[in-house]
């Protein structure tokens, strides 16, 4: 069979990925583990000495941890959202990206909430959230949303793996694998044999999952935004918060997707899978999103600025003042709102590498923008800040926070390294399905009705 042959070919081409790890792979893991250990050391210090060794104080109670939390969860929800939409809309060219998107979703969703734990004064009392739940609190909404989303996303990820596990199970003889892995594939493939009934069932399950993941992630991220929106703070309590958060999430998700694609393409020679077109399509969506971002940002701040109020004025002037956040702000807003239009929009600059590097800048810029939406706001209470201790007035993160940030990223990367060893980073079987082969279950009956009428 045609598809059967192609599958084997594809697998053969990419088998170095999943075969027994070499030294280089172990080196990668080791470096990541060292970074993680430094983070763990910082964590131990933080627990034993108390939060005083972080930069957080009574005014700026949330620092880099929450920025990371918001940022990483944003990536996660974006991954789910984009993957779901691509799947439901049957976007053919996006099929190779599916697996990466779903991996981002799950890994970010596991690592993100860790930062909120780091931020808690008494993480060991987490159980209280279940003992005395108060659903009036945005934190409880968030908790429910994150847990639901985590379960959904892990299961969804697994569903999309089933066909590939079956493929690996059937072809394990040709691959250089450890014995336990063969058994694992067999178990995980759930006896999937690609019979028409099985295929129909699986496809339906995938469609349902994609359909519920989309609203779940939008809701979950909006709830996260309301963590800020429900605070009586200038700069946060705006109706714009939730949509703006969702937009920035999608934006950062696409930027990250481009970066990961680029890394795999460069290091694993996946030019055939992650083609130039992928970069161009995603690059242009980056441009569009950057314009949207600029639009949202502008409309939020122009209204604040025109209706100037005392506290708002103090906050905005911090963004404009070059001795405070002026530099961060202007560089970051340039990177997220203008850079994609210039580098990707102007043909002369446009190339695979430039698109990828722009994405790096966008991602960094978005992180800084999140920082700027959290820290300066907390530094601008209604009452004047009259603390005589400098560190109580201005937040600056300590090495504890930074090393835990790096450790978090390292964990995400480690997950990726391990996961791409376990099964191909591209959804081989899904890619081989012919266009229009699997029918769209949700609107199935409607379409029939429409075509009849």
């Amino acid at each position: 069979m045609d598809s059967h042959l192609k599958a084997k070919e594809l697998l053969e081409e990419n088998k170095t990925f999943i075969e027994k790890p070499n030294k280089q792979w172990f080196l990668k893991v080791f470096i990541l583990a060292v970074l993680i250990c430094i983070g763990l050391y910082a964590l131990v210090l933080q627990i034993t000495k108390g939060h005083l060794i972080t930069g957080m104080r009574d005014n700026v109670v949330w620092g880099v941890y929450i920025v990371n939390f918001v940022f990483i969860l944003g990536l996660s929800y974006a991954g789910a959202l984009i993957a779901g939409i691509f799947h439901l809309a049957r976007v053919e060219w996006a099929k190779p990206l599916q697996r990466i998107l779903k991996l981002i979703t799950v890994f970010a969703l596991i690592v993100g909430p860790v930062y909120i734990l780091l931020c808690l004064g008494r993480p060991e009392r987490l159980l209280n959230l279940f003992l005395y739940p108060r659903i009036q609190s945005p934190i409880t909404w968030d908790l429910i949303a994150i847990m639901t989303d985590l379960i959904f996303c892990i299961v969804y990820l697994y569903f999309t793996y089933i066909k590939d596990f079956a493929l690996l199970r059937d072809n394990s003889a040709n691959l250089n694998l450890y014995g336990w892995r063969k058994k694992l594939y067999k178990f995980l493939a759930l006896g999937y044999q690609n019979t028409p009934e099985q295929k129909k069932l699986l496809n339906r399950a995938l469609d349902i999952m994609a359909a519920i993941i989309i609203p779940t992630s939008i809701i979950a991220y909006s709830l996260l935004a309301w963590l800020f929106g429900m605070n009586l703070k200038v700069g946060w309590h705006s109706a714009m918060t939730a949509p703006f958060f969702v937009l920035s999430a999608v934006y950062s998700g696409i930027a990250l997707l481009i970066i990961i694609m680029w890394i795999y393409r460069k290091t694993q020679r996946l030019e055939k899978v992650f083609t130039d077109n992928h970069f161009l399509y995603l690059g242009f969506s980056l441009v569009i999103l950057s314009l949207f971002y600029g639009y949202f940002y502008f409309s939020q701040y122009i209204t604040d600025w025109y209706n100037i109020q005392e506290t708002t004025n103090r906050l905005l002037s911090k963004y404009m003042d070059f001795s405070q956040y002026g530099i961060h702000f202007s560089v970051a807003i340039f990177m997220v709102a203008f850079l994609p239009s210039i580098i990707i929009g102007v043909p002369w600059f446009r190339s695979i590498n430039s698109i990828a590097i722009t994405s790096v800048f966008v991602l960094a810029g978005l992180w800084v923008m999140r920082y700027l939406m959290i820290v300066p706001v907390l530094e601008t209470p209604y009452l004047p800040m009259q603390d005589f201790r400098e560190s109580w007035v201005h937040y600056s993160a300590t090495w504890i926070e930074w090393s835990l940030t790096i450790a978090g990223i390292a964990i995400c990367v480690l997950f990726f390294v391990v996961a791409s060893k376990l099964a191909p980073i591209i959804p081989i079987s899904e890619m081989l399905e012919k266009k229009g082969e699997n029918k769209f279950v949700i609107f199935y009956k409607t379409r029939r009705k429409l075509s009849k009428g």
Partner: protein
Amino acid sequence: MKDKKSNSRRKFLSTGLKIGVATAAGGLAAAKILEEPPKKSEKIKVLTTDGTVIEVEKPANDCKINPCSPAKGIEARKGIPGRSFVMVIDLAKCKNARKCVEGCQKGHDLLPDQELMKVYLMKDNPESEPYWFPKNCFHCDNPPCVKVCPVGATFKRTDNVVLVDADRCIGCKFCISACPYSARILNWENKETYASNDPDYSPETQTPGQHGVVSKCDFCPDRAREGKLPYCASSCPMGAIYFGDKNEDTVTNGEETLRFKELIKERVGYRYLEELGTEPNVYYLPPVNRMFPYERGFSNLSEEKKEILLKSISKP
């Protein structure tokens, strides 16, 4: 440690009405001494009708509110029935003596730089004279901090008090950022002085709290049960802080007892940032006809600190 703390609280308990009456009798100078809790003399002597002298235990029930000891568990979340505590701060009298801050810190076993009561220097507009502005938690009737707590560790009671249950708080700090009045602090340091796991624990006496949880002004409900003013009100030398029960329509600073509604009406009392809709229970009397020029308040601050204050009130 906790022992020290609960002891001192108990001592206050045992002092009671007799001392209160003696204070009233003794006039001002005597009051200053009598304020302090005595350490010994659990018995008092009574001269009976036939001229013999007997010793009796001091009546335990010296308190104004029953039960006298701080409420625990579910009771602590309900509030003292029929009470509606309010505070009125007369800005015309404040000269940044900082005695309220110190009294509060001492009474609540706080660290020297933890301030549940703070004194700000404020200036309403470029033309107006700066004034000193003591600020604690406003015990809002529509408290943003309570709305956001995920575990109900901070709660509003029927007696207007907003309390923190230090045994339940997970330290998410959401309430700190939700409070528009910067009234909350966290116990950042892992210090042993913070009490925990005390069988006598009550949210009414949760200060200084525990490591990693929130603290805030608690309106001293444990003192109210004994008929005593909060530490800040009783330690202000100028009598700038009035405290009382709105249901009784009375506030007092220890020397002067006034009718709350009349006071607010006549002196045009206001609540800080009324427009936020938080409905505070702390009222301010505007700083008109001041007793002191505001510069007097710098006398206990270094030049450097003075600069910081003055800078923070100048418009950007």
